[in-house]
């Protein structure tokens, strides 16, 4: 029946595979888990190292790093934790080449995905309650692109066609607009809370 153990289980969640690896120490299980994010890791490594051989070596070095690390640590959300490990590794590589000065982030102190998810839910509530008000506070370009992206669900390419703006400009306007909306909505929520407490 040993051959059954070699059949991968694509339905298993990250947490299940992680628990299995921590219990058994089988590299096959860790390999299966890592493979899910290996292409993203490669993309991240290439972004920082800008060399395909160095990026490939970094991806494999991170895997080697995970073997002992995951026997000791149990990240709450593997994907977010791995992103920090990969990014730190690449930044350290750059530092060792003398290109930049960096300070490693502790993956265990990173914001767990569950909290990010809570943020998403809160954002959705804000979208329903105060989006219209805050949209008015944005610049004309930001408002237009944000509306097209979030309300009309257009992709960057379509927004480029509609507005005639540059692709990078569209992305930047949406990202900045999103951040400004978030700030505006946080302010409105906090002021609402204060007024509720007064009454």
């Amino acid at each position, binding site marked *: 029946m040993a051959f059954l153990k070699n059949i991968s289980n*694509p339905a298993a*969640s*990250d947490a299940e595979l992680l628990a299995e690896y921590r219990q058994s120490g*089988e*590299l*096959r299980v*860790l*390999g299966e888990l*890592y*493979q*899910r*994010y*290996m*292409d*993203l*890791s*490669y*993309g*991240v*490594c*290439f*972004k*920082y190292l*800008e060399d*395909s051989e160095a*990026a*490939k070596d970094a*991806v*494999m070095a991170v*895997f*080697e790093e995970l*073997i002992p690390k995951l026997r000791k640590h149990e990240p709450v959300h593997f*994907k*977010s934790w*791995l*992103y920090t490990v990969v*990014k730190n590794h690449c930044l350290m590589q750059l530092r060792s080449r003398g290109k930049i000065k960096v300070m490693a982030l502790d993956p265990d102190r990173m914001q767990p*995905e569950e909290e*990010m*998810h809570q943020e*998403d839910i809160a954002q959705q509530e804000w979208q329903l309650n105060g989006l219209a008000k805050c949209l008015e506070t944005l610049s004309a370009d930001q408002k237009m692109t944000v509306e097209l*992206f979030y309300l009309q*669900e*257009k*992709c*960057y*390419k*379509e927004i480029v066609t509609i507005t005639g703006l540059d692709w990078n400009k569209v992305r930047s306007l*949406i*990202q900045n607009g*999103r951040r400004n909306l978030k700030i505006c909505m946080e302010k409105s929520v906090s002021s609402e809370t204060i007024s509720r407490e007064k009454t």
Partner: protein
Amino acid sequence: MRKEDDHNKVYSSADILRYLRGTLSSSEMHRLEKAAMQDPFLADAITGMEKLLRAGGTPEVDLGELEKRLADSTRSKRATLYFSWRTAAACLLLAGAAALTYFFMSTPDREERALATVERTTSHHRGNAACLNRTTFPPQTQGELQQRLPVLRQRTPSLPPKHPIPDNRILR
């Protein structure tokens, strides 16, 4: 794209490359862009893949090589682990067998062997007093042997006292 759970879809390199090459539908592109806004891992990976394509790289080839390297890495390490377990088991077995062999082979009474040595020495060097004088035993051992000689001879009929040993020769 693999769906991990309701809130967190995992995008593959194939999705990213299709996006970058413009072969995704508008709604798929929008979903990926929205996901990238909430997921810095995905956003960084898209940026990296975009850089790689612009540099004329071959992401599919690179990722194929990485998959092979990962498979080799997990296989060789497992094999090493398996081998080490086998080696350890074999060593234990051999050590156990050696210990048992030593125990059974060497247990025959030490006293019998001592007696046999004494017998051989005395018969071989009979008449050669100078040589016999050099056969030295610690005084305590000699005394003990002398006291236990009758008992030992009864227990070892294979070594009959053909040539009784004069007490003064042994005890010298």
